[in-house]
């Protein structure tokens, strides 16, 4: 899986599509479960941005660390976090990956080095610098992939972290999911320079802007960047330009953007584009798409059933894990 060459064989292409469809179906059912009050709190869905998580994760190994955002279901699924534990977490059940303590915005999975959804915009960037530092000081060949939205670029942490990572030439892949709106504020209303990848140059960080709705392009760019990082070239920044086609969170009247704009981006959505291309190029057989869609539906339904059947943490354990007894091995 390593290297910056992409072998577009039949199975690989189907896999990319299947990963994106799994995320899309998961998110649709999340919306449904939210409206049925099975899921509460804030819920941020990933519709339209699937190509980024799927493409970047393909370029990583299990040794690498992933630091995620609060819109991280797709990042978690693409990283391999089981949907059962993910959905149970959203249901607040003890079978959830964080025993119901994290919820939608704080998904952690130690076994997959998935170090958190982070609901403080920009809060994960310093962490990624730290995991990269720790890995390098211990001689590990590992990259820390840090996802953040373009809103995080407004924060000081973005600039502090790029600087520190570059200063110490740390193995960090900064992945900016630029969906053009930080909640309801358009990029141009928040940043004086809207070409985000250009900001990296100020810190001597190599960067690239890529069509974030093209899963193959994202994967190729991620492989290039990860390859350069592993070669000792220091951090890299990948700006993936995309669009979320759903509301910011569930309770959002979307007063800040036109329906026509949303509709236009939907037509350029990563799944629609990739699937259309595969079909028109005869790269998939007739029933393969239907099969992987059915499989995704089945997987998510099973995850919902798993979450439904789960249990709530005992109240006696309310204060557990506030103070740790030991560092988990």
């Amino acid at each position, binding site marked *: 899986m390593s290297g910056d060459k992409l072998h577009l064989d039949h199975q690989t292409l189907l896999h990319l599509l299947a990963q994106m469809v799994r995320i899309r179906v998961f998110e649709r059912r999340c919306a449904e479960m939210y409206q049925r009050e099975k899921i509460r709190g804030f819920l941020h869905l990933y519709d339209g941005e699937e190509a980024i998580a799927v493409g970047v994760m393909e370029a990583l190994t299990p040794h690498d660390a992933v630091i995620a955002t609060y819109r991280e279901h797709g990042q978690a699924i693409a990283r391999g976090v089981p949907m059962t534990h993910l959905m149970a977490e959203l249901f607040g059940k003890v079978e959830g990956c964080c025993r119901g303590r994290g919820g939608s915005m704080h998904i952690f999975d130690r076994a997959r080095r998935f*170090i958190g959804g982070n609901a403080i915009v920009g809060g994960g960037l*310093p*962490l990624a610098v*730290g995991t990269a*530092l720790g890995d390098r*000081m*211990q001689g590990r060949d590992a990259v820390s992939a840090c996802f953040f939205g373009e809103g995080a670029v407004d924060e000081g942490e973005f600039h502090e972290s790029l600087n*520190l990572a570059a200063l110490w030439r740390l193995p960090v892949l900064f992945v900016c999911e630029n969906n053009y709106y930080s909640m309801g504020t358009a990029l141009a209303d928040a940043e004086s320079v809207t070409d985000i990848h250009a900001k990296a140059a100020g810190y001597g960080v190599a960067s690239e802007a890529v069509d974030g709705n093209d899963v193959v392009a994202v994967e190729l760019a991620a492989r290039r960047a990860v390859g350069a990082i592993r070669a000792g070239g220091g951090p890299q920044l990948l700006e993936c330009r995309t669009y979320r086609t759903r509301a910011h969170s569930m309770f959002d009247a979307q007063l800040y953007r036109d329906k026509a704009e949303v509709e236009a981006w939907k037509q350029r959505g990563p799944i629609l584009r990739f699937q259309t291309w595969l079909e028109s190029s005869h790269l998939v057989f007739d029933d393969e798409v239907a099969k992987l869609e059915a499989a995704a539906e089945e997987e998510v339904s099973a995850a919902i059933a798993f979450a439904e059947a789960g249990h709530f943490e005992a109240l006696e354990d309310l204060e557990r*894990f506030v103070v740790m007894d030991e560092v*988990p091995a």
Partner: protein
Amino acid sequence: MTVITYREACKQALRAALVADPRVFMMGEDIAAYGGCYAVSKGLLAEFGAERIRDTPLSESAFVGAGIGAAMAGMRPIVEIMTVNFSLLALDQIMNNAASIPHMSGGQFAVPLVIRMATGAGRQLAAQHSHSLEGWYAHIPGLRILAPATIEDARHMLAPALADPNPVLIFEHVMLYNVEAELDERIDAVDITHASIRRAGTDVTVVTYGGSLPRALAAADTLAAEGIAAEVIDLRVLRPLDMTTVAASVARTHRCVIVDEGWKSGSLAAEVCARLVEMVFYELDAPIARVCSAEVPMPYAAHLEQAALPNAGRIVAAVRQVVRPA
């Protein structure tokens, strides 16, 4: 017995930690080439090299966050923040990541990180370098907060702090760095769980910590000459508070004065007071009194700064009022 400074005790602790565990490294502003704002880390760069003694940019949020990340990746970082006022630039990382991730992740991740910082007033550094905000940090579940006030604690608290799987913040009072005392070499370890009775007495319990301990002990000397036997308790650990020791003392003396360089409103002193009321209300024979800093941003001029701070005279007056009410 050798006489050393508090600063030297801190340095010995750091050196011992760096020798003992290759996972330990330091980072912070001007700790390496400069030798540390308060010269605590002077000489460590030459001994341990730039990989383990790391100067950082003036990016508190980034280097504290990097300490958290490195701790989660298996290292045992010691992060130095020049002074507690600067730590506010990293408050997000300390609160929202270090203190929250273990619980938020359902126990999947621990954050074995030590953050040291200078605190307190007395050096005419005015309002942006002199405050005592450790009480704010003591508010946060998931953190352990230490305030070494003696040479022994300065020398020995670091090792158990590094062994703790949780984030530990160590507050070193700026007025203690030059204090000299004999280091009892028979003591080779201290706990980071208990308060300590620094002087026994029967008439009143004076509860304090950090830079106010020498003032409280001086006050106790004065009071002894008046026939008032004050028991002086050094909290040592500001979170979790060892209220068992404090409450047991107050149950014996029936009176309590709390000395805290923080502001009175919403302070650590307020917390100790509230817990005493919860725990030993029916043992109290007088209202609990507090000696805290005046509620002003710390002023520059020496006479104003001194007027704002707790001192032995104010402690003596408070104790007199509690023990022999007018």
